[in-house]
C-alpha cells in the first residue's frame, strides 16, 4: 500500500521505487459505485432545497413536464441545470488536474494553483466590463484564451528559473500571477461597478447555471474528456519521466501539446460557467491514484466520476447546511482543499 502511494504521489526522480501497479478491480468498483452514488446524489440534490420536492414529483418533472406546476418549473429551470453543471465542472476540473499532475509529474499541479483559473477569470472580467452583451459562445472562447495565457506565463516563468521547474516554483509563480490577475480583475470590477456580480461568480457561482450554458459547454467537455481517455496511455508513460516515455517510442512534445490543449478546454470552459473554483483538480487525482494505482487509463475516468461526485455533494452541502445563506461552492471546496494541500505540502520531501 505504502509503495503504491509513494509511486502515485511522489514520482519525483525516484523511478527505481515506482512500481507500475494498478488495480483494475478497484477502478471498476469505483466507476460503477461512483456512478450509482452520483445518480443518488443528483436525485437528492434535485429534491432538496429551499422547497423540498418529493422524488415522484421530480420524476414527473423530468419525464412528464407540465409548465403550469411551480415545482416542475423549479426543477426544470433551477435545480437540474445546477446539478448537471456541477457534474460537468467536477469532471472537467478533476480530469484537468489529473492530466497536469501526470504530464508535469508535479503533485501540486492544479488549474487553480497554476494560474489557469485566474487567467480565464481575468479574461471574463474584461468581457463583463467591455463587452457586456457578448454571447456565451464567445465568452467561452475568451475564457480558453485567458486560461492559455495564464498557463503560459506560469509555466514560462517556472521553466526560465535557474535549476528548472520544480513543483514549489510552479505553485509560487501561480500564486503571484493569480495575485496580479485578481488585482487587475478587481480594478476593472471597481471601475465598471460590476464588483458583486464578479465576486459571486468568482466564489463559484454554480447557482446561476443556465441550460444554454450547459448546451454550449457540453460538446467541449465531452470531446476533451474523450480526448483525455484516448491520450491516457501516453500520459501514463509521461508520468514515468520524459526519458522513459521517449525511450518507449513516444513523441512527448506532441502528447504534451495535446494534453495542454485538453486542460485549457476543460478548465477554461468550467471557469466560464462557475468561476475560479479551486482544489478539485488537486484533491481528486490524488485520491484516485491512491485508490486505483498509477495507470492513467483508469485514473482519468475514475477522476471524472469522483470529481462530479465531489462537486455535487459540496454543492448540496453548500445549500443545505445554512439554508438561508448560500455558501459559495468555492468556499466549501477551499474548506476541504486547504487542509489537503497542507498535508501534501508537508509530505513533500524535496526542496525548491
Amino acid at each position, binding site marked *: 500500500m505504502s509503495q503504491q502511494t509513494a509511486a502515485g504521489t511522489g514520482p519525483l526522480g525516484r523511478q527505481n521505487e515506482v512500481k507500475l501497479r494498478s488495480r483494475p478491480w478497484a477502478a471498476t468498483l469505483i466507476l460503477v459505485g461512483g456512478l450509482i452514488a452520483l445518480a443518488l446524489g443528483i436525485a437528492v440534490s434535485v429534491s432538496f432545497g429551499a422547497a423540498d420536492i418529493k422524488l415522484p414529483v421530480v420524476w414527473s418533472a423530468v419525464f412528464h413536464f407540465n409548465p403550469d406546476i411551480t415545482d416542475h418549473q423549479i426543477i426544470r429551470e433551477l435545480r437540474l441545470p445546477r446539478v448537471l453543471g456541477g457534474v460537468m465542472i467536477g469532471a472537467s476540473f478533476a480530469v484537468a488536474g489529473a492530466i497536469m499532475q501526470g504530464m508535469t509529474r508535479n503533485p501540486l499541479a492544479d488549474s487553480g494553483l497554476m494560474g489557469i483559473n485566474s487567467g480565464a477569470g481575468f479574461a471574463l472580467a474584461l468581457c463583463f466590463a467591455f463587452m457586456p452583451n457578448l454571447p456565451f459562445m464567445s465568452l467561452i472562447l475568451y475564457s480558453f484564451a485567458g486560461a492559455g495565457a495564464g498557463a503560459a506565463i506560469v509555466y514560462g516563468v517556472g521553466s526560465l528559473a535557474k535549476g528548472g521547474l520544480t513543483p514549489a516554483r510552479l505553485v*509560487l*509563480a501561480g500564486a503571484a500571477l493569480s495575485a*496580479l490577475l485578481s*488585482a487587475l480583475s*478587481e480594478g476593472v470590477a471597481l471601475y465598471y461597478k460590476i464588483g*458583486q456580480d464578479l465576486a459571486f461568480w468568482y466564489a463559484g457561482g454554480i447557482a446561476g447555471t443556465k441550460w444554454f450554458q450547459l448546451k454550449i459547454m457540453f460538446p467541449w467537455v465531452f470531446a476533451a474528456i474523450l480526448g483525455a481517455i484516448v491520450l491516457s496511455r501516453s500520459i501514463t508513460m509521461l508520468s514515468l519521466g520524459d526519458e522513459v516515455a521517449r525511450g518507449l517510442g513516444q513523441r512527448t512534445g506532441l502528447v504534451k501539446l495535446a494534453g495542454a490543449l485538453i486542460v485549457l478546454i476543460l478548465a477554461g470552459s468550467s471557469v466560464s460557467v462557475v468561476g475560479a473554483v479551486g482544489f478539485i483538480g488537486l484533491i481528486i487525482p490524488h485520491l484516485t491514484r491512491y485508490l486505483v494505482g498509477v495507470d492513467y487509463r483508469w485514473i482519468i475516468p475514475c477522476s471524472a466520476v469522483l470529481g462530479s461526485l465531489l462537486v455535487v455533494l459540496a454543492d448540496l452541502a453548500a445549500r443545505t447546511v445554512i439554508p438561508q445563506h448560500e455558501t459559495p461552492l*468555492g468556499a466549501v471546496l*477551499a474548506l476541504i482543499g486547504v487542509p489537503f494541500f497542507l498535508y501534501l505540502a*508537508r509530505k513533500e520531501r524535496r*526542496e525548491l
Partner: protein
Amino acid sequence: MRRTTAISFDEVRRRRGFQVLAILSLLIAAALIISVNTGYIRLTPLELLHTLLGRGTDKQELILFDFRLPRIVISILVGAGLAVSGAVMQGVFRNDLADPGILGINAGAGLMVMLLISFYPATTSAPVFMLPLVAFVGAACTAAMIYALAYKWHQGISPIRLLLTGVAVAAGMSAAMIVLTLRLDPDKYQFVATWLAGSIWGTRWKFVLSLLPWILILLPYVIYKARVMNVLNLGDQTATGLGAAVIKEQFRLLGAAVGLAAASVAVSGGIGFVGLIGPHLARRLVGPKHQLMLPASALLGSLLVLTADTIGRRILQPSEIPTGIVVAVIGAPYFLYLLARTRS
C-alpha cells in the same frame, strides 16, 4: 595590507549607503510634492507653500490638511511598515521570497478586520483605534498557525514548506472572506471590496494616530536589532555559536514583523508585495547589512506606496484605483522575475 583594504571597502559601502538613504529621502519629498498636487483639485507648489504657512484659502486648507496630508502620511507609514516587516521575515526565515502578503499574514489580519467591520457599524468612531489591535490578533494567530503547520520535528522550518503553507492558509482565509462579503449589504460591500483591494481608506488624522504608535515603537526596535539580524543570517548554528539566543530573538523579531504588518493592513487593506520589493531593492542598493538595509527598505516601501497611491489617484479620475492594485501590478511581475532568477 589586507586589513586596510577591508576597512576601506566597508567605509566606502557605508558612505554609499548613506548617500542612497539621502537620495531616497529626497525622492520621497519629491513624490510628496507631486502627490499633494495630484487629485481632483490641484494645488500648485506655490499655493502649497502658502497654505502650509497658514495663508491659503479655507478650501485649500481643507483639501491639504484634512484630505491630502493624512493620506500621504499614512501611505508613507504603511509602506515603511510593510517593507520592514518583509525585510525582517526574509531575514528570520532566511527566505528571499518571504513577505507578509505571500505568507498569508495580511489575509489573517484582513479577516479579523473584516469581522469587526461586518459586526460593527462602520460609521462609529470606536473601532478606529481597535483596528490595528484586532488586526494584530488576527495576524499573530495566522502567523502562529502557519509556523505550527510548517514546522516538522527534527527538521524545523523549511523555507519552501513555509511558503506553500502560507499560500494555502491565505487561500483558506480569502475563501472565508468571500463568504463574509456575500452577506453584506451593497453599501458595506463596496467599502469592503475597496478595502480588500488595498485602498488607503483611513484618510483622516485619527487613522494616522492609530497607526503611528505601532510604527514609532516597532520600527526603531527592529533597526536596533539590526546587529542581531546580521548574526542570525549566518545560520542557526553559527549564530548560536556566536552567543545569540536564536529562538528567542527569532520570536521577538517575528512578533515585531507581525505587528508592523498588522497595523499597516488595518488602515490600508491588502497591499501585497511591498514587503517583497522593498527589501530586495534595498539589498541591491546598500548591501545585506541590516543597519543600512532596514532603513533603506523602509524608505523604498514608503516611496513605492506613496507613488502607487498617487498613480492610482491620477490615472482614472475622478474614480480612483486602489493603491494595492497598482502595487500588485508593479510587484507581481517583480516577484515572478525574482522567482525566475533565484537558484534552488
